[in-house]
């Protein structure tokens, strides 16, 4: 085996298989945004702190700016674009709207994916567990107050129709 500077990768993103040649140096977030046009995943920092680029890879929340696309060959990825189905908002999305858990909306996709990862693994989180789950997602608008409330409400199924 010899190292390569670009490689063909096959990834399943939101249920669809994509095959692309990609440079080894390309970050997953740029692969999603620039190559696959999935622009719901955002970039807010360049050090893996802000979590705006959070997606779920093989069931785990990760920061897509902290992975190379070539590492994902064969992986299954869920992005914000997969959350609503058939025009119906996911309960978390509805709860975020109900509770005014977003202002500018830039951190929201990453925040929602972290919240989904939490609820996928813990159906009844405590407030502290919610805060720990979104510790890796920076929001500069809300002070997190309404985000925490929204996630708690979604967990309890208390969302508006």
């Amino acid at each position: 085996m010899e190292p390569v500077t670009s490689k063909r990768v096959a990834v399943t993103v939101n249920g669809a298989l994509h095959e692309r040649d990609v440079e080894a140096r390309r970050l997953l977030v740029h692969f999603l945004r620039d190559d696959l046009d999935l622009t719901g995943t955002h970039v807010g920092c360049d050090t893996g702190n802000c979590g705006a680029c959070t997606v779920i890879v093989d069931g785990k929340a990760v920061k897509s700016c902290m992975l190379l696309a070539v590492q994902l060959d064969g992986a299954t990825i869920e992005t914000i674009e997969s959350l609503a189905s058939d025009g119906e908002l996911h309960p978390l999305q509805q709860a975020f709207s109900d509770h005014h858990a977003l202002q500018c909306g830039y951190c929201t996709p990453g925040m929602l994916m972290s919240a989904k990862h939490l609820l996928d693994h813990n159906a009844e989180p405590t407030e502290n567990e919610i805060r720990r789950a979104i510790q890796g997602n920076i929001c500069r608008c809300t002070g997190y107050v309404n985000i925490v409330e929204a996630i708690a409400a979604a967990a309890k199924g208390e969302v508006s129709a």
Partner: protein
Amino acid sequence: MSETTATTAAPEQVEAPQKGFAGQSIPRKEDKRLVQGEGVFFDDVKRHGMGYVHFVRSPYAHAGIVSIDVSAAEAMEGVYGTLIGEEVAAQTDPFFEMSTPPGNEIRDYALAVGKVRFAGEPVAAVVAETRELARDAAELVEVEYEPLEPVLDAVAAVEPDAPVLHDEAGSNVVWSGTFDWGDYDQALAEADRVVKIDRLYFHRFSSTPLECAGALVEYDRGTAQWTLHCNHQMPGIGIVWMAPALRVGSDKLRIVTQDIGGGFGNKITLHPYFVALCLLARKLNRPVHWTEWRTDQHTANTHGNERTFLDVEVPVKADGTMLGYKVRAFDDAGAFPRYEPLGCIIWAQVTPGCYRWRHVRVDFTQACTNKSPTAPNRGYSRMQQLWFTERVIDVVASELGLDPVEVRKRNYIRSDEMPYETPNGCVYDSGDYARCLDIALDLVGYDRLEERRRDAESRGKLLGLGIGSTLDSGTNNFGQSQLLNPELQFSGNNEVASVRLDIFGEIVVTLGTTPQGQSHETVAAQVVADLLGVTPDDVHVRAGHDSYWNSHAGFSGTYASQFAVTGLEAVKGATLALADQIRRLAAVILGAEGPDAIVLEEGFAKVRDNPEAALPFMACGAIINVNNAGLPPELDDVTLNCRYVYRPPFQVPDTERKFGNLTLTYATQIHACVVEVDRETGVYEIVDYAAVDDCGTRIHPQIVEGQVHGATAHALGAATFETFPYDEDGMLQTSNFYDYHVPHALDMPPLKTGYIESPSPFSSLGTKGMGEGGGAGIHAVCAALQDALRPLGNPVVTESHNPYHRVWELMRDPEASRAGVEVAAAR
């Protein structure tokens, strides 16, 4: 951990029960797209064949540019072209400067010309096929520098032997002047004591919006027009800077925004970058796309104003009544003034803070330093002043052994004095500070304070309570710029909205504003819905801003806490005009007596006493737009497309006395904070926090509360974590989110909120601009720390930023901080 408690206290002034959507927390119109990742932020916009831009930035804080060689970069495969300062200097004029000499001699271009003045300043730009290639090529640009000594402090910058940044100005002074209001000497004569404080320092930080700056810029050769898909938060002013620099008329620049990932003022002065992009798009005849990265934003975008207060004097009566103050203030503008020197006057909107201080003398100097340029940052310039007033209150109280709550109440402007004219002619419209304070204290359990102190002590902690009393002054009178430079031809303010009824009866609203999370689509729809008798779902508010299609006025934009007044007054004015046209049309069509006989309800124009006679809006839209043959001439002016420009009732201030009303409305924030300090480490935790807000009539309480949460989070971050310090070489020490720690979910204390409503007498809806807050959290934390540390030798908190190590230093050596404070007998 968090709880949100609306106070049970009844609103201050209860009007007739609300009928309609205003006052209700309806679902936000923006949310559906944003929660699905379907918002459109500038970086989501792509064009065929576009090139990616990477800026080559200076590693030096201060250096001459000896040479720039772009040949290797241009020769690289995949590179489309480059731009350097010499080209910029040849093709553009320096940006307009607002100051008087020497500040207005400064020549500010899109790229560094001849010299670099802060680390991170762009010196060249490279465009390539991919983002990565652009950066690769940028590394091949050879720049030879001749390092110069940097100057990194505003006070030092005005010393005669300081290195000068701008040779053409010959001095680092951007602006300086004296403000003298009331009779300070008389105040000294009346005082029983004078409290003196050597130095107070408000630190440099910014709101660091999560979305960094950027743009996709297209150039149309045929029409010589540029289109910028970007996140500029004040396009009107942006164009005023850019068009003359590019030597074109303002119509040649089209600025388009949709969703913006937070602005907080930090996206007002993007014009240097955008002019470079315009030049590249024209030079290369292709769309160019620039994404600023986080490190770039921290090192080279905008910072908030850093201010040093020297030689503070406060004349005080024996009973704790403070008569005013005297101070020398030094404001650090960074390397280029850009939006400055407006910060040299904006603070004066809140000259006495919340207090009845009548005698004020301020010697104000703003200087350039070799640091990133400053720009408005949430609470712009007033936050610094309000921090100063709150520190003054607490230090004076502490030194004279007075209770900080009692001192505040004694000195607060009273609700029965409203509207209140400050010593410099500003008019505080309404409010009840003492009542807000009582609510805040109640929320944090003030009555159990001593008990909680003892409990904390038993756990090795020191507990302290602090108060931050601030005002969010909204709707600038731009005439205040004439107090800095009487030659400037700016005054008043304006905002614009268009409301129309389209062919199928759709109600379409365009705003002059450029929201970045402030929910203008929703709030505008509430106001329109109530006036036209429809629901907010029936009102289509255009997302974002397009300077070609949105109405916009000279001061349009989203800044300075003004939408609830300027934006909504414009929406209301346009809607009323439309309603009037609909009524006139319907009266004719339905054969009613006149427009007054028509009511608008549920999407119909109805004859008041004959519900059977009703014209749906769809018919109105169709009649005027596509079925208008035979309409009588008295309807000639009915277009169902109404634009309204709201102009607040301002006068030009008196430039001699620097006197006049500088702002229309004043929202109040009274915050109370309880901290526990670990005696061993200086680490502290906010264990209780209350924010009480009064922004007059609330159109959408949930959105108002969201702004309160956000402003509080910014203030708490700045109080403890967020700072932009430089080392001796002028290198920023916190250029990423590892070192520039912003509050995370676990860092935020439990927040309690309360409110009262004191409607503004100066806005027709009773609203007041809000959202910036006045940095009350910073002031409250400073006060709480000082209170907590009192048993350890009564150290004085003299800086706005108090990280753990600073608290530890205060505990270890209280005398060092006390040395700068003195209580003198009055003369």
